[in-house]
């Protein structure tokens, strides 16, 4: 973990309302493993105190790139960052994804900008290209498909309105693939997206007897494990459950460890 003042290299629009921020951060960027995140101190807005966590999308040449959607006063303030501006980063944080075993076929499942958390796994975490299921409400939610395709991965989009790829939920597209074209594969799943999607990916993996590593997004405070804000119920050795910190023990948990809110352990 490092605390570093990064310099904004560029900020530009991505698909739809999403934005890409490239930061020169030579201490942190080379240390980032797939699935880890950085905690960004916001510029200026005097009354918004806390840092904001972002998955690291790409790294290279001492720079890191994050993908974000302005949704609140913190991320709105980030739009004002311009080339040359300084920004305080804390990272890399979290455990990240384990590498895909050599005898498994990597299958990535993303909802919206969950794609950002999976790119490094595609680039560095798998010995050979696999399949990316990219879901969203509409085609503007299918992000950076070209970046995955450039690595040789097969991108299978699914949108709820049918504007791109299969119509419906990405997890339904995944189920159809597993029953058909992907039936002979030995998948290892790596997923990032809304909780409902993650839970469904976990159920699919358990039914298939295969591992699924889920990157969980929780409202976060300090990012290092001190404030105990971002807790998730995790199965305990005694058969019950315990809170674990998404920022420290996570954000990636194997699906069999996770106790979802609507179930008992």
């Amino acid at each position, binding site marked *: 973990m*490092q*605390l570093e003042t990064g310099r904004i290299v560029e900020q530009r629009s991505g698909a739809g309302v999403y934005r890409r921020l490239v930061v020169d951060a030579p201490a942190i960027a080379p240390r980032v493993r797939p699935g880890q995140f950085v905690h960004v101190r916001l510029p200026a807005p005097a009354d918004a*105190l806390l840092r904001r966590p972002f998955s690291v999308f790409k790294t290279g040449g001492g720079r890191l790139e994050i993908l974000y959607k302005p949704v609140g006063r913190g991320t709105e303030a980030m739009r004002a960052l311009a080339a040359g501006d300084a920004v305080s980063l804390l990272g890399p944080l979290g455990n990240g994804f384990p590498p895909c075993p050599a005898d498994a076929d990597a299958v990535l499942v993303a909802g919206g900008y969950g794609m950002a958390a999976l790119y490094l796994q595609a680039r560095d975490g798998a010995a050979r290209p696999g399949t990316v299921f990219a879901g969203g409400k509409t085609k503007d939610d299918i992000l950076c498909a070209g970046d995955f395709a450039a690595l040789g991965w097969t991108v299978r989009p699914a949108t709820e309105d049918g504007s791109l790829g299969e119509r419906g939920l990405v997890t339904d597209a995944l189920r159809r693939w597993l029953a058909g074209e992907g039936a002979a594969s030995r998948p290892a799943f790596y997923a990032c997206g809304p909780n409902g999607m993650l839970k469904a990916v976990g159920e699919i993996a358990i039914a298939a007897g295969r591992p699924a590593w889920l990157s969980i997004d929780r*409202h976060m405070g300090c990012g*290092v494990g*001190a404030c*105990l804000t*971002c*807790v998730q119920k995790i199965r305990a050795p005694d058969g019950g459950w315990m809170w674990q910190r998404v920022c420290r023990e996570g954000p990636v948990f194997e699906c069999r460890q996770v106790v979802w809110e609507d179930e008992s352990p």
Partner: protein
Amino acid sequence: MTPDLSVSLGPLRLRNPVLVASGTFGYGPEYADLVDLSRLGAIVVKGIRLDPTAGNPPPRTVEVASGLINAIGLQNPGVDGFVRDYLPFLRRHDVPVVVNIWGRTVDEYAEVAGRFDAVEGIAALEVNVSCPNIKEGSRAFGTNPEMFRRVLDAVRARTRLPMIPKLAPNVPDIAAFARDAERAGADAVSLINSMPAMAIDIETRRPRLGHVTGGLTGPAIRPIAVRCVWEAARAVRIPVIGMGGIMTAADAVEMMIAGASAVAVGTANFVNPLASIEVIDGLRDYLARHGLASPRDLTGSLRT
């Protein structure tokens, strides 16, 4: 002249008057990659009770204007878990460890105090009578004078460690609580704890915290803390440890001018992990710039 930052809080000798506040620094390892723990005046660890406690359901914190409302619910590993899993790490570092203790009953406070009395490597006990997040009467300990005195008498009877009650800000006369603490044999008082608070999502009309209400911390409460420190410090001879929204050395200096002999950095740690170190360095610079030899020369130096 380089100022000597060391201070005494009753029997407690600290290399400088800057602590990290309970609940904002974990149990030490969380920030150890970034912060040289041996530079801190002391670490006040997150509140410990007798048995492990799971804490509240999320959402546990919500950011508000210039502050943070928390309702963690005092998640903690219990006395035995702390001593087994966390204390050995802290003891490897040259930093005084102040243990924040709490209970659901007077007897539990006393039991926890007694257990820590027998443990090596603990510098003092901060008695958390004022956390707003415990339902079963803990708030009453901090705001009801009779309960407050009973807890402190019970703790005092069970430990020789320095006893530092942590006072609630939501009382009509905080000086009276400080005086009661002094009479009960407290070696210092720390204040303020978080301020009871609430936030609502107006679209869903649901509370923003799983626990509905919580405690407000951060710069939003600092002027309240400064006033409380001023009132308490004038009322007692024991030292006051001031806290509440300290983000910078200037904030710490203000708290000391109001009467604090030491300060604790809390919510600022979440924003800037080096905040406590910057406060120590900035305090030294301030003292030097004003020709003051010791933080003692600053404490209670308000000109009225």
